């Protein structure tokens, strides 16, 4: 319902990664090794995450350089197993969340 949920609370979280694919330090990368940051926003209805380029020297995230994305619809996928990010890239919901 795009009209109604305009000011609902959002919870943000983030997680760093050293690489696009899992490696020995993916769980706990040291600051100097962080290359990607995954920023998540969780609303009642969705969990939306973008994994973007991150520079550990100046702590900057580049949201123009998206490595991957995740979008889960909580009502139909409460366990977050069906990522529909690529299906919605050009849709209204994606733009609204962004």
């Amino acid at each position, binding site marked *: *319902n795009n*009209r*109604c*949920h305009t000011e*609902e*609370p*959002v*919870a*943000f*979280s*983030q*997680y*760093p*990664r050293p*690489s*696009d*694919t*899992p*490696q*020995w*330090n*993916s*769980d*706990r*990368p*040291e*600051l100097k090794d*962080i290359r*990607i940051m*995954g920023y*998540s926003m*969780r*609303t*009642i209805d969705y*969990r939306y*995450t973008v*994994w973007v380029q991150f520079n550990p020297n100046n*702590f900057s*995230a580049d949201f123009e350089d998206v*490595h*991957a*994305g*995740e979008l889960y619809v909580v009502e139909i996928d409460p*366990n*977050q*197993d*069906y*990522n*529909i*990010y*690529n299906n919605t890239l050009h849709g209204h919901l994606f733009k609204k969340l962004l």
Partner: protein
Amino acid sequence: RPGPATWRRLGWDWGCASACWPPAACSLWRLRGAQQAVCAPSRVSFLTGRRPDTTRLYDFYSYWRVHAGNYSTMPQYFKENGYMTMSVGKVFHPGVSSNYHDDYPYSWSIPPFHPSTEKYENDKTCRGKDGRLYANLVCPVNVTEMPGGTLPDIQTTEEAIRLLKVMKTQKQKFFLAVGYHKPHIPLRYPQEFLKLYPLENITLAPDPWVPKKLPSVAYNPWMDIRQRDDVQALNVSFPYGPLPDDFQRQIRQSYYAAVSYLDMQVGRLLNALDDVGLSSSTMVVFTADHGWSLGEHGEWAKYSNFDVATRVPLMFYVPGMTSAAASQQGRIFPYLDPFSHNLGLVPQGQSKKVVELVSLFSTLAELAGLQVPPACPKTSFHVALCTEGASIVHYFNSSEEKVETEDGCED
């Protein structure tokens, strides 16, 4: 649900049937909200009221006061407002990230307490089937055989109870932070808690496979699990595994047992609050630094952005607000032994609002009647006192009933 227990996990699906924690029934509780699903960054974040991008702590290897900015912490703020502030157990993550002294003396009035047996936590103390000792992930133990004859969380409870008794005589406002280790790995807990969760009742996660469309960058390869002796012996493939089904059940069984062990410690502590007569004048907050994957998505441990890793319990007991204050003789927190009581499910709390741990600082300040720290400006590296989380006290009296507004939306 297996056994008469408690919070099934300090995160996601903890169907609460609290053995030792009636406040689950008489408190507000809220879900979600760790800012980063790993210990040190999450703790520094909610204790300073700022997100990891402002504390600049994403790993374990810097101290925010010199690395990002000399930010005041929540306990520091209470200390500066006349409270005796005390830290027992794991509150700040130990080591570099809290300047090796749990941010003492900034945050605490007295030196933080750490259990003497904490140093054995990763030693080979788990008895294997061959009778030898290992550093296992799954580690139910006979406590009397442990070094020192106890476990760290038991010592933490004892020290916290001692401090409550001292505070009763001091008649001074206090802020007591009690940090339990469990259910952190290794899952080392008194073996009798296994009885609460018969293995035949333990199921696998509802989705124990890696989702087909999960980006590889989102996956955490649970390295800390792999390094334990019992998991190494399984020779599991990197990075996706999976662990054998029977071992997945053993992990889940021990996780639940460790949570019930923690539940008992919290029950003992709150019972002591009643004993010293402070429960009608003391706010209690229960929370965690992150959740933990128990096989969902083929993953284990924390280290991800999945709800199972970021979601935490957040309970508030505020006398006279979330429940009526106890009478002089009344008890708010009667202790119930999980081994002798048949405990049913406690009704879930009153709220499922989306909130964040970063709001804890301003919320507690407001509830205590202190000035709420101002909201941080966009760049706050030189601002000593501000917060990036808004107080959620306004939720406390709000109804969960949905009301239709004039434009047809649910309010």
